[in-house]
């Protein structure tokens, strides 16, 4: 049990909390905008299907939002309870960024979500739409500030160290640090993809259990189209982010590729068991020259190797290889599955668009054109965004180790001197609560979908004219 010291337990605890937390912002960031889209379409067309879609998803939004809020509060306290060294060293940088997140994002979302959820019949339609927009804007601002801070921890600049404490010298450089634009774009698109597949998956589920309502068609088309459009963009942005990482954190890229020696013409390792003791890969399956091609855009380009990041005494200065290597592959693999499913589905819906609601209309896409296996495949893919997002964050965060702030402080320097059993005990409690909440969350989504499909939810009932927005 020697390995389970306070440091490793605190890291697992923080990872558990932040992994649980990120699931819900990943949904709310983009779902806020998708709800605004439904809300605007309803105002434009007056078609109830958009409002029904809005009413269905706003519930899941509210639930996800509450889960995000409560798990986020946990994070803000954990800085102090488990990682006091972080703020003591870089508090002058991290502090203002976190403060701006609270001031410009948290209050905005928290206040207007009340109006968005419960104000429909109390405020004029435009105020309700504005509230929906402000909540979406608030979640995005929140993501922006937290990504700024996270990116600064990967590629710090605009500061100087005095007596072991960081002092800001250039806020512009801190905010627009080299990896921020890539990470922010990558995360925003990840959020939209998560929501695209969630909307498509839940709608496919409703379709499969017999729900043929018009909003299910609208939701399915919205989800699949959003996914199909964004996944190529995400692949491009992800590639650019990788090139940025190669420039600023080469050890992370070396671990992602499980490349031990700095050399030209590096093959792309599809599968391997990286062995840090022997410093080689076992059972390697690789395509020659492709890693060089991806990372340098040249077949014989030189890719940095892990053996360049070793201390004189033989301790590695690079991240643990296997977790970074595998989580990167899980992310890319999930992305490829998303690409295949969304494009093939889009093609089927387009090819048979004349089947739209059993008649030939001006529509470009018909849900009726989707073969059943594809609809079934979409159901488990509803949570594929979560898998890819978590795997991506594990790649980048474990890939920064042993650093907490690259080149400035190690993770070990920040940890609190709390007895290990205390950390273990709280960790187990958190895990139990999170497991219970996750089961309840997914259970409620399934229940809401079933209820809406059966027709006794507000999803399919005719809207009560008395409940129309006040004008």
């Amino acid at each position, binding site marked *: 049990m020697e390995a389970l010291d306070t440091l490793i337990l605190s890291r697992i605890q923080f990872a558990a909390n932040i992994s649980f937390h990120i699931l819900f912002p990943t949904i709310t960031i983009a779902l806020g905008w998708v709800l605004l889209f439904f809300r605007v379409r309803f105002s434009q067309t007056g078609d109830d299907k958009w409002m029904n879609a809005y009413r269905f998803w706003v519930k899941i939004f509210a639930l996800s939002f509450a889960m995000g*809020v409560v798990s986020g509060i946990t994070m803000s*306290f954990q800085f102090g309870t488990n990682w006091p060294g972080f703020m003591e060293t870089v508090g002058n940088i991290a502090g203002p960024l976190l403060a701006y997140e609270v001031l*410009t994002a*948290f209050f905005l979302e928290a206040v207007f979500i*009340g109006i968005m959820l419960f104000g429909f019949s109390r405020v004029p339609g435009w105020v309700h739409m504005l509230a929906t927009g402000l909540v979406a804007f608030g979640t995005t601002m929140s993501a922006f500030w937290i990504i700024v801070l996270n990116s600064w921890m990967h590629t710090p600049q605009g500061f100087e160290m005095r007596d072991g404490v960081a002092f800001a010298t250039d806020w512009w450089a801190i905010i627009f640090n080299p990896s921020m634009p890539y990470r922010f774009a990558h995360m925003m698109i990840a959020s939209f993809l998560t929501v695209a597949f969630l909307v498509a998956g839940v709608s496919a589920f409703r379709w499969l259990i017999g729900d043929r309502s018009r909003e299910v068609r609208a939701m399915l088309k919205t989800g699949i189209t959003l996914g199909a459009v964004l996944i190529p963009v995400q692949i491009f942005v992800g590639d650019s982010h990788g090139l940025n990482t190669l420039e600023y954190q080469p050890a992370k890229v070396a671990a992602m590729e499980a490349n031990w020696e700095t050399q030209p013409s590096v093959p792309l390792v599809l599968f391997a068991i990286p062995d840090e003791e022997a410093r080689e890969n076992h059972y390697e399956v690789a395509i020659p020259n492709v890693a060089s091609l991806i990372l340098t855009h040249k077949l014989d380009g030189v890719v940095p190797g892990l053996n360049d990041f070793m201390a004189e005494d033989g301790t590695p200065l690079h991240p643990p290889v296997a977790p970074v290597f595998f989580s990167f592959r899980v992310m890319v693999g999930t992305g490829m599955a998303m690409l295949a499913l969304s494009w093939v589905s889009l093609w089927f819906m387009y090819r048979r668009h004349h089947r739209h609601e059993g008649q030939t209309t001006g529509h470009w896409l018909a849900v009726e054109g989707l073969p059943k296996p594809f609809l079934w495949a979409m159901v488990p893919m509803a949570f594929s965004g979560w898998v890819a997002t978590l795997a991506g964050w594990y790649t980048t965060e474990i890939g920064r180790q042993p650093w907490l702030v690259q080149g400035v402080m190690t993770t070990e320097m920040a940890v609190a001197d709390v007895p290990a059993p205390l950390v273990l005990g709280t960790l187990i409690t958190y895990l139990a609560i999170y497991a219970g909440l996750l089961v309840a969350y997914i259970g409620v989504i399934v229940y809401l979908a079933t209820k809406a499909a059966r027709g006794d939810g507000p999803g399919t009932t005719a809207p009560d004219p008395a409940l129309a927005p006040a004008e």
Partner: protein
Amino acid sequence: MLPDFSNPADWLPWAFASLMGLSILIYVILDGFDLGVGILFPLATPGEKDLMIGSIGPFWDANETWLVLAVGLLLVAFPTAHGVILTALYLPVFVMLVGLILRGVAFEFRAKARDQYRNLWNGAFFAGSLITALAQGFMLGLYIMGLEQTAATYAFATLAAVFLAVGYSFIGAVWLIHKAEGQLQTKAIGWSRGGLWGVILGIGAISLSTPFVSNRIFDKWFGFPEMLYLLPLPVISAALIAWLFVMLRRMPFPQDRFSWLPFAVSTGLFALAYLGMAYSFYPYVVPDQLTIYDAASAPESLFIILVGACVVVPVIISYTILAYFIFRGKATELRYE
């Protein structure tokens, strides 16, 4: 008490301590009534429970954000103190977080889950609210005791935990007097009458014990001429308690007039009690260990936050008022339509 405004290293920590103090006070009152309503939950019938949820549903999330702002300000303005306080309060902070998690998600789940799980989530809502209040009271007690961890300080902290939970349920009950009508309002008046005794005991116990924890605090209160300046504080508090006592005996008034008054008077009372505590501890952020000046971040970092805060906080306050205005009047069952 006032800093030297020509020296940023002097007035910036003071400004941040004030801002943090203000957000803690706003939190205690606003989330105090949310949590209080949660603690009173088991006393209500199922129909009343929905109305109680309706009276806090549109606000709880924003109310809780004041806690995030307060701990955020502690984190960004006084990072050293943040580390010392939160590692000392490791376990009660954890318990509070569990409470906040349960309370926050129960709001949503009780309305959306299958009917057979409804009682489970009602229970989680009550338990979460109570656990949060007790943990916060426990932390308050330990903080007053200078974060020392002995059997005696734990005993005092346990007492403070009970008093804070009673205090929250009191302010929750007076909030319900304003937001409810009929049977539930009558019940809420009864709860307030009972809760007021707990508030008197709690404010009394904390006010009497704080000066005896440290000589410094004793001298601040019982020195001369400070005692004269401070006299209005206990006198006004006593007057507000007497006012509440008489008013609650006579409520409800005809046509439901002044239903908001008990909440307003209670807010005043809580603010005075809080002011007294803030006076006792100033200028320390960790009692008798770290002053706000020892623990403060670099002035340039504080300044850039203050600029943002000066622009944004008035905006936050105005849209918060807007939200309370939109959801004014008696609570109804919450609907998304």
